[in-house]
């Protein structure tokens, strides 16, 4: 029995002005993966390929054990998809949409949970979609997906454009999904805070390439920002581990990858007086990884 929510091997896709290159990505069941990348990096393309909406030029894709695009109908029966550029029928009501989904997923639709979500998300069932605010529409789409208890949730920017209250409501319900260790979530986001908080695994994408993919704690453990005081003749420069050196007067601020205690001893021996060692936020790590990759600095 397949224990992966999805697997992508050597996946590539060529467009006129953009290409997705050699993507190897997978997520174990019960996990949640956050996909981070700048605009145009290829997050949406990866997600569409997983959904079978776009074909890959080469590589294999399996979602919930089903090969895509071949068995996309079977896979999609258990996938819940919400995308930032997806729209519901504006002249119909939320009720209509709920009935529509119920007809298509008669064995999965959970009316009780749907009603509960209506309350939690503060939505009016017989309101027309066109009368809703952006945040309400996003929540409506998420409700329609959650109420059928999909095994894999694929979310393209689920909290973008939501006010803080709505964001919290949505995150609460998404996390509740993970109470079942058979259910998994993939979400792409600009919001590195959300990704940092919720993800088990984090994947960085830039310009169609996989920059890195690892479990969150490993990322956070590998990177540090070190502040130290130096004199004129210090020997501290960018190298394999020191990704960035910023000088402010006598103070150096270093961004360090693959951190371990030896580095601190090494820096001291090179003329540095360690002032502070800090963890970096996911956002800072992401920027550092992307810059390193773009400059071709080897890891």
């Amino acid at each position, binding site marked *: 029995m397949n224990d992966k929510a999805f697997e992508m091997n050597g996946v590539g896709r060529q467009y006129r002005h953009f290409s997705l290159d050699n993507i190897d990505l997978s997520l174990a069941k019960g996990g949640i993966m956050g996909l981070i990348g700048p605009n145009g990096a290829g997050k949406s393309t990866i997600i569409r390929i997983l959904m079978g909406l776009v074909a890959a030029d080469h590589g294999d894709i399996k979602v919930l054990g089903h090969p895509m695009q071949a068995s996309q109908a079977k896979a999609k029966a258990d996938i819940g998809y919400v995308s930032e550029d997806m729209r519901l029928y504006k002249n119909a009501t939320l009720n209509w949409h709920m009935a529509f989904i119920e007809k298509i997923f008669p064995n999965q639709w959970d009316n009780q949970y749907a009603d509960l979500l209506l309350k939690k998300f503060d939505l009016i069932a017989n309101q027309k979609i066109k009368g809703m605010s952006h945040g309400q529409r996003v929540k409506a789409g998420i409700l329609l997906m959650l109420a059928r208890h999909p095994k894999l949730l694929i979310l393209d920017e689920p909290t973008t454009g939501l006010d803080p209250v709505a964001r919290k409501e949505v*995150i609460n319900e998404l*996390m509740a999904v*993970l109470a079942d*260790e058979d259910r998994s979530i993939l979400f792409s986001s600009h919001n590195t805070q959300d990704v940092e*908080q*919720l993800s*088990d695994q984090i994947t960085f994408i830039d310009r169609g390439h996989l920059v890195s993919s690892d479990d*969150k*704690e490993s990322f956070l453990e590998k990177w540090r920002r070190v502040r130290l005081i130096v004199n004129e003749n210090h020997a501290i420069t960018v190298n394999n581990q020191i990704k960035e050196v910023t000088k402010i007067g006598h103070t150096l601020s270093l961004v360090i990858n693959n951190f371990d205690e030896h580095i601190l001893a090494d820096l001291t021996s090179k003329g540095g007086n360690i002032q502070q060692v800090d*963890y970096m936020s996911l956002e800072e790590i992401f920027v550092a990884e992307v810059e390193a990759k773009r400059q071709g600095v080897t890891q």
Partner: protein
Amino acid sequence: MNTLFALSQKDGRPMYLQIMEQIKQLVAHGDWQQGEKVPSIRELAVATRVSVITVKRAYQELEREGVLVTQQGVGSFVARNEDLGDQIMQTEIDKHLNAALTHAKSYGISAADLIMRLQHLSAKNEDDDNE
């Protein structure tokens, strides 16, 4: 349950450390009794809206520190240790005290001076409380 855990991303420390600290506080104050079953990793993750892997790491570290005990297939429990609460409190206090000692040293202040400073501050705090 989530009201027992106030986690902040603005707090400079990693999430797993925050979770560890709050669990240790619960144990130290007797909210979680020794031998009591604690929420599963997944339950806590969902309740605090933090990734499973982070909670897992917190639990692993707590096990290493002797605060929690995990039985495969059964769950995690607060360690059976009469003095656990006191030990935790002591370890936490020691952490702060050691930090103060290190700081003092770097400013050239001796341990004896530090003790005097501590007494002075303590008296001052009492005055403030009585006002």
